[in-house]
C-alpha cells in the first residue's frame, strides 16, 4: 500500500509546473476570516510584571512604614489618634500611605488569586473564592482611600 501511495504522489508532483501550479493549502494555524476571535490576552504577563515592579516599590514603602510605626520612637506605644493626625497633616505621608494601600492591596489580591487558582480545583469553588476576594479587595481599597482623603483631625 505504501509503495502505491508513494508512486501516486510522485506521479501527481510531476504534473505540476509553472503553467499548472499545485493547489495552495492553508497552513493549519493561519488566521482566516472564519477563525474565531482569540480570547487570549497578555493579562498574566502583565500580572507577573506587576508583582515584581510593585514588590520592589513596596519593599521601600512597607519597611519604612514598619520602621516608623513599630521600631522608632518607642515602638507601638506612641500610636494613637494624635500620632495619625500628626502624620497625615503632611501630604508626603498621605501620598505614601495611599500608594502603599493601592499597591499592597493589588499585589496581595493578585497573589491570593494565584493561590486560589492553584489549590481550588472545582470550578464553582474557584469562582466563589475569587468573587469574595475581589469584593473584599475593592471594598478595602475604596474604604482606605476614602479615609485618607476625608481624614479630619478635628473630628471631636
Amino acid at each position: 500500500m505504501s509503495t502505491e501511495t508513494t508512486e501516486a504522489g510522485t506521479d501527481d508532483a510531476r504534473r505540476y509546473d509553472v503553467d499548472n501550479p499545485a493547489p495552495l493549502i492553508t497552513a493549519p494555524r493561519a488566521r482566516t476570516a472564519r477563525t474565531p476571535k482569540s480570547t487570549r490576552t497578555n493579562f498574566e504577563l502583565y500580572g507577573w510584571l506587576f508583582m515584581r515592579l510593585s514588590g520592589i516599590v513596596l519593599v521601600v514603602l512597607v519597611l519604612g512604614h514598619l520602621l516608623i510605626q513599630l521600631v522608632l520612637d518607642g515602638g507601638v506605644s506612641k500610636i494613637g489618634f494624635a500620632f495619625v493626625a500628626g502624620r497625615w497633616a503632611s501630604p508626603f505621608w498621605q501620598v505614601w500611605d495611599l500608594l502603599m494601600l493601592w499597591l499592597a492591596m493589588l499585589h496581595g489580591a493578585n497573589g491570593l488569586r494565584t493561590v486560589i487558582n492553584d489549590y481550588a480545583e472545582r470550578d464553582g469553588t474557584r469562582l466563589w473564592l475569587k468573587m469574595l476576594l475581589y469584593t473584599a479587595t475593592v471594598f478595602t481599597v475604596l474604604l482606605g482611600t476614602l479615609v485618607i482623603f476625608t481624614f479630619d483631625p478635628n473630628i471631636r
Partner: protein
Amino acid sequence: MPAGTLYRGREGMWSWVAHRVTGVLIFFFLFVHVLDTALVRVSPETYDETVAIYKTPLVNLMEYGLVAAVLFHALNGLRVVAVDFWSKGAKYQKQMLWTVMGIWGVLMAGAFYPVLQHTLRSLFGS
C-alpha cells in the same frame, strides 16, 4: 522523591512555600489593618480603644511575627526578582536564599527590643 511531582524540596521549594504562606498572612493582616485605621473616621476614642489591642502582650508578639513575615517576604521577593531578571539569578538562587536568611536573622535580632519594648516595659517594669 515521589514520581510525577513538582514539589522537589530543598531551598527552591521551601522558600516558595514560605513566600506563599507569609504573603497570605500579610494580606489578611492588611485587610484588618485598613479596617482598624478606618476607625479614625468614627472618633478618636474608638480608634485609641482599638489600637490599645495592638499594645497587649499577645498582639505585640504577633506584631513581631508580622515583622518576621514581612521581612522574609520582602527579602525573598527581591531574590525572586533577581532569579527572574539577573542572568545568573537561577544559578545562585541557593546562595541568595541563605543571604536572605542571614540578613533576616540580623534584622530580626535588631527589631526584637524596639518592637517588643512596650510589652517588655509593662511586664518587667521601667
